[in-house]
């Protein structure tokens, strides 16, 4: 009976955390104004998100032991992210074009690639995450590393311009009228890779 109580307590705590993570995700979507709910809901959603993230210890200091234990448990159980895939709407996808400037004046266009489809899917997932605000501090370094991965295969490059673009897909009607996808450049970085090599 005692063991059953321990199991039941774990069940309660575990699913309380799952609920908090899921609600934080749904409230975040509503607070962003990306749902069909009218705008007055946004501020309540923001409050709801705060409560949910508080339950997860995210409002505590980064070194707070409770926060650390909860975060470790969430990751260990794979429940750190909610389940709102492709919701509320399917987002635009993104692509990275690398302009390779050679010493002899040639210019080539490349994209980072993986060998297998399983890894290629992960690369696309990475590109779709980069425009998110929370990844802004690491955006440049990630693009630099992606450019560097291509440079390793073309050692005689002098400079690389990485252009990150959002690809807006046509609607069914637009597609029927012959409209293609619309490319919107979001940001670009110039990397002098010779300098990088010398460092």
């Amino acid at each position, binding site marked *: 009976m005692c063991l059953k109580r321990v*199991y039941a307590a774990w069940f309660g705590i575990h699913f309380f955390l799952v609920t908090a993570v899921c609600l934080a995700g749904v409230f975040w979507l509503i607070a962003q104004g990306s749902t069909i709910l009218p705008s007055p809901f946004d501020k309540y959603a923001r409050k709801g998100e705060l409560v949910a993230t508080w339950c997860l210890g995210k409002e505590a200091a*980064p070194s707070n032991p409770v926060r650390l234990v909860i*975060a470790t448990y969430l990751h*260990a159980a*794979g429940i750190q992210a909610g*389940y709102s895939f492709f*919701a509320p709407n399917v987002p635009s996808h993104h*692509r990275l074009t690398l302009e390779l400037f050679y010493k002899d004046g040639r210019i080539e266009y490349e994209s980072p690639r993986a060998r297998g489809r399983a*890894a290629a899917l992960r690369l696309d997932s990475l590109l779709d995450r980069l425009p998110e605000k929370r990844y802004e501090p690491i955006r440049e370094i990630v693009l630099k590393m992606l450019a560097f991965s291509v440079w390793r295969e073309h050692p005689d490059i002098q400079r690389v311009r990485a252009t990150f673009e959002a690809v807006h897909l046509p609607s069914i009607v637009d597609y029927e009228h012959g409209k293609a996808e619309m490319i919107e450049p979001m940001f670009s970085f110039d990397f002098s890779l010779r300098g990088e090599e010398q460092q």
Partner: protein
Amino acid sequence: MSSLTSYAEGNLKLNLLHRGWQRFLGFLFPSESDTWLAVFRIGLGLQVTLYAVFLRSDWHYLFASSGKGLIGREIGEAISSFDSPLIPKFDWLIAVGRMLNISEEAVLTIAWVSLLSAGCLLLLGLFSRPAAVVAWFVHLCAAESGGLLAYGADAFTTTALFYLMLSPLPDRYSFDQWVTKSEPKNPHALGFWHRVLQVHLCFVYFIGGLAKCLGNGWWDGSNLWRALIRTPFNLVPPDVLIRFKHALPVLGISICLLEVSYPVFIWMKKTRGIWLVCILAMHAAIGLLMGLYFFALIMIVMNLAAFGVPYSSRRTQATSVSTEH
């Protein structure tokens, strides 16, 4: 007189609470056989094995340090360490390897071999528990060190492996059982972990369905269209999809309703079969039409283990296990 009434009322409330608690325990600890666990173990063994095999050529490229791989695992590990430095990652294994004079490349190869071996052992049911623990640990390291490269299928695989390693392994269809001829597991413990998996799936679909219902694109079919024509999921040519354009809104609404109502209809005997078949068909379609094979497989495995084992046979077997005790 009034104190007697309040005493009786208090007693009644306590009784109600006690009965509620007993009913809750009854729900949490049903008597179950280990058939679902065998399905879960074999399915996860297949998932882990395929994961390792399909990432073989890119394994070092994805998880090598900066300057050797795609983006270097340091970024993913830094993000994960920001959440908590206690989360397992490849950096731990590489640090141990350094102490033993083993190169980073060799450690990553050992990790890959361990994952593949754990997957194969799970498939066979040999050393089931250690294999489940190794598979969970190495997969978690890969998911955390991969960080930005991880996606939905990774989180589900981690969760499923987490539940599997805590479940009362080995099951009776495993080689372990055949070799050791150990006592049958406690049917209530089996029932508890089965419930955990079932309740988890209810959360997954309810939240997924609710979030989809909040987007206008799922009601008019445009989200299905966008999902199917966006790179890298565009396996079906748009011209073929156009032919089914009138079916897209119906399919979009069906997906929303199917997911959001899953926690209700999957528990009812009469509707369980229909809901399960529809959910399995949805995941099979996601796998085949969008190329999300790992995502489809893990969801199919979890659903089959949770609700795919017929209740009637489960009860019969559970009774036989109980009587053996």
